[in-house]
């Protein structure tokens, strides 16, 4: 009887913890997933590196080696996602090129609506798709700063720490990147593709 109560209590605690993680992921998961997608060549790789980063966080929090409170989770995760993406890129160079080709073919076949990066109403779906394509055309060092600053809501200090650059460099890359992205989208707007002014 006591054993049953103990196991039920343990299961209940586990369930509560699982629900807590789900709740946290519903709030923050989208911005982390966007960054993971920006860092990788495929949706599957993005999910892999994000999960890896989340698991590492949980392990560190549980074994007491994580320094900082819950407010430090997101900065840690951005750093971990980027590190995992770099490791993955080194390991799967050739596979990545094949998957990149497959991804671009899939995007062509579905009109770019498969696994979109951004939420959008039907009228704005094309704008979102062009923003996504333009970010992908940017040099990675600009794209990652923009993604972290605008949709990740990170400070330049946190961006600098995650990307191992100075705060000033992060701010500089952000300005140059934003200008480059605007130019790309201006060209699309001139062609009548964008709702952005």
């Amino acid at each position, binding site marked *: 009887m006591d054993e049953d109560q103990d196991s039920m209590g343990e299961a209940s605690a586990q369930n509560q913890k699982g629900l807590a993680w789900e709740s946290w*992921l519903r709030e923050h*998961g989208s911005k982390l997933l966007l960054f993971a997608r920006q860092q990788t060549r495929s949706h599957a790789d993005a999910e892999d590196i994000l999960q890896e980063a989340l698991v590492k*966080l949980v392990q560190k929090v549980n074994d007491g080696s994580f320094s900082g409170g819950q407010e430090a989770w997101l900065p840690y995760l951005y750093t971990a996602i980027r590190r995992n993406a770099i490791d993955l890129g080194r390991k799967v160079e050739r596979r990545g090129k094949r998957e990149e080709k497959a991804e671009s073919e899939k995007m062509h076949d579905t009109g770019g609506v498969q696994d979109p990066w951004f939420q959008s109403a039907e009228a704005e779906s094309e*704008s979102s798709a062009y923003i996504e394509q333009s970010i992908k055309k940017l040099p990675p060092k600009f794209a990652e700063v923009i993604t972290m600053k*605008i949709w990740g809501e990170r400070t330049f200090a946190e961006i600098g720490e995650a990307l191992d650059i100075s705060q000033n460099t992060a701010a500089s890359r952000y300005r140059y990147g934003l200008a480059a992205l605007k130019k790309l989208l201006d060209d699309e707007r001139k062609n009548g593709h964008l709702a952005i002014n």
Partner: protein
Amino acid sequence: MDQELKDFEEQLKAHSPEMMPEDMIKRMASAMDQWGEGSVNEENIIPFQAAQKLVADQSPQTVKSKLRFFNTWAQAAAVALVAAVSYLMLNQGDPSASQASAQVTTVEPLSQQVPMANIESAVPASNPQQPSSQFSSQLKNATQDVITYDANGRAVRLMQVEFEDEVIVRDREGNPHVIKQPRVEYYAVPAEIH
């Protein structure tokens, strides 16, 4: 940053990242739960019963290989047994033979034929009712003082190795008799000539 870029920044912020799909949330949360508690996925544990079954399946082969090994020793033991039987038969009824049962007995190499009928009354050394390891061989000495040349003109060092084979046999009363027989073998080892 100029106002134009600030306005552009606000327009980009209006496009929110796509929500994480519900199934992905559950997968991620499940992975975080599992790894966070340090639990092990039991599906990945392969029970040892499979390994034990594999060993059991292989046992006939192991027995077979042991039998092959046994046959070699059985042949050697049979030779020693014949020598021992001949000794016992020749010394049957001799009081001094029972007194020597606890002593080491050296037997000369077999030099005469032993009638097969006499063997039937002897207890074999490999009697399963008796302790095993009835036959053994010990290295007594080794020398390598001679250098010669083989048919191809290569220098080889001749090693003379002396063994002492030992066999334990039992007479009709069950008394053990240890029989030792010397054996000399020669080995040719390639020699390095400077």
